[in-house]
């Protein structure tokens, strides 16, 4: 378990979406978060909604990161977050999504709004590591007992 200066940094669950087979985005996010000191569980690509839900209920991460680059991120991400947010145990979990979320490579304001309304706390543009780091650094930290 990672701990720095007696502080336990928030745990993170990283996952792809059910239909997305891409891996490098997930490997990169895991290495990045581990270097920032976080414990990371990485579900890998093509994680079905059931698996993500089960892992979230089991690990109770402070942060759940959904990464998708196959163009189905809007549809898959929307369905997934509705499922996750229907469980009150996960109400306090910060949930974010990012990557290439549509098939046309354009940021779609309406789709971003729907993702936020459905339960994501943030929707990141592809490659916006600075904004992601900012959010991660603001997660509540608890002292190691």
């Amino acid at each position: 378990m990672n701990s720095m200066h007696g502080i336990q940094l928030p745990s993170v669950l990283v996952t792809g979406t059910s239909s997305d087979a891409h891996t490098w985005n997930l490997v990169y996010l895991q290495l990045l978060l581990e270097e920032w000191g976080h414990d990371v569980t990485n579900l890998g690509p093509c994680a079905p909604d059931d698996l993500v839900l089960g892992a979230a209920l089991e690990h109770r991460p402070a942060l759940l990161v959904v990464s998708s680059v196959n163009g189905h991120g809007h549809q898959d991400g929307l369905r997934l977050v509705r499922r996750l947010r229907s469980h009150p145990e996960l109400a306090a979990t910060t949930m974010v999504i990012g990557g290439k979320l549509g098939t046309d490579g354009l940021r779609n304001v309406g789709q971003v709004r729907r993702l936020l309304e459905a339960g994501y706390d943030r929707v990141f543009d592809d490659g916006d590591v600075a904004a992601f780091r900012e959010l991660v650094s603001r997660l509540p930290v608890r002292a190691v007992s």
Partner: protein
Amino acid sequence: MTRVPFGDFVAGARARGRLVVQPRMGFSDPGRMREGLARTRAADAVTVGTLTLDSYTRVRDLAAARRAVADGVPLNGYPICTHPPHTSRAVLDGIHDASFPVQVRHGSARPEHIVSALLDLGLDATEGGPVSYCLPYSRTPLRDAVKSWRTACGMLARHTGDGRVPHLESFGGCLLGQLCPPAVLVAVSVLEGLFFAQHGLRSVSLSYAQQTSRQQDLEAVAALRLLSDELLGHVDRHVVLYAYMGVYPHSRGGALTLLEAAARLAVTSGASRLIVKTAAEAHRIPTVADNVEALETAARAAADAPAPPPGPPAADSEVYAEARTLVHTVLELDDDVGTALVTAFRRGLLDIPYCLHPDNAGRARSFIDRDGWLRWADTGALPLPTAAVSAARKVTSADLLSALSHVQRAYDLGGTP
């Protein structure tokens, strides 16, 4: 319809000194899909057509594919199991014939539903493999993928005869697309080719994806040709090269220059077919026009490329020695290639660097060396000499990002790696 088997078409082009070029193209709208096939056929190049399927069909979430089609939501490929057969036949009618074979590309670890749908449409060429579409692209247990691919191979093989020779291409030369040392790509391709042959296929292709060093790539394709000559001499076979499958250059100039390098590599290494990438690759799902431009650019570059030296490829390379060791180590595990593959991955005798699948050992690590060659940072339990490890070290997120974008940066800056 006069049939020409996929493998015969490619062999015919090769005999005429022409590289076959092929897109990776799929649209959910049948009209657009038909237009894509028609314009691939009409391109100024020797082409074969592609139906690339969507991600929902790939993971067998046919309910999601149906909803998307009903709601008019665009998918990232053609939902072959969702559109009614008469719709798909109309897409192919008058386009798919003796002068224009069509291959179905999908990415499914459990492809029986896809193979059934393509056979129903009169198609018999597809691609994938029990390892190459399982470990990198799914959460399906390897044992289940092997079982599904046995069934799928049997379904295809049963359609042999009466002028038909079903063709299956191993996707083993791609794996995670980048950062896999070539010996593993070559070994998995050959092993999947052997698996296909063991389950009745009489025509196969072995793949290799362009990596970071032209010299290393030439050695790798030579190794692939030698090993397939040694082990697959009893079936029709050819090598298919994939234009770079990693992070693609963002600039138009860089993207097309990388594609041209792939086309020249294909010709000079003795590959018979090339799957192209487009100038739009880094930004979005490519359009039909993007694909036609890529096909014609690749065909022009191929026409000017030097032919491979005559005779069999050289057998003295490091890639050949490593790949040969991997292949024979696996084959000695069991007479059944599928069973041998499952055992090999369980023991880490095959190990795909950075692959997150639970059935992959995940101990092997790779890096791009100063000379641009892909080498081992850690061989894990792979049966390779310890000398194969060039620089034992921990790979950081910055190292990884830098390695992943190595080719993209070089080409976007107007050079080569």
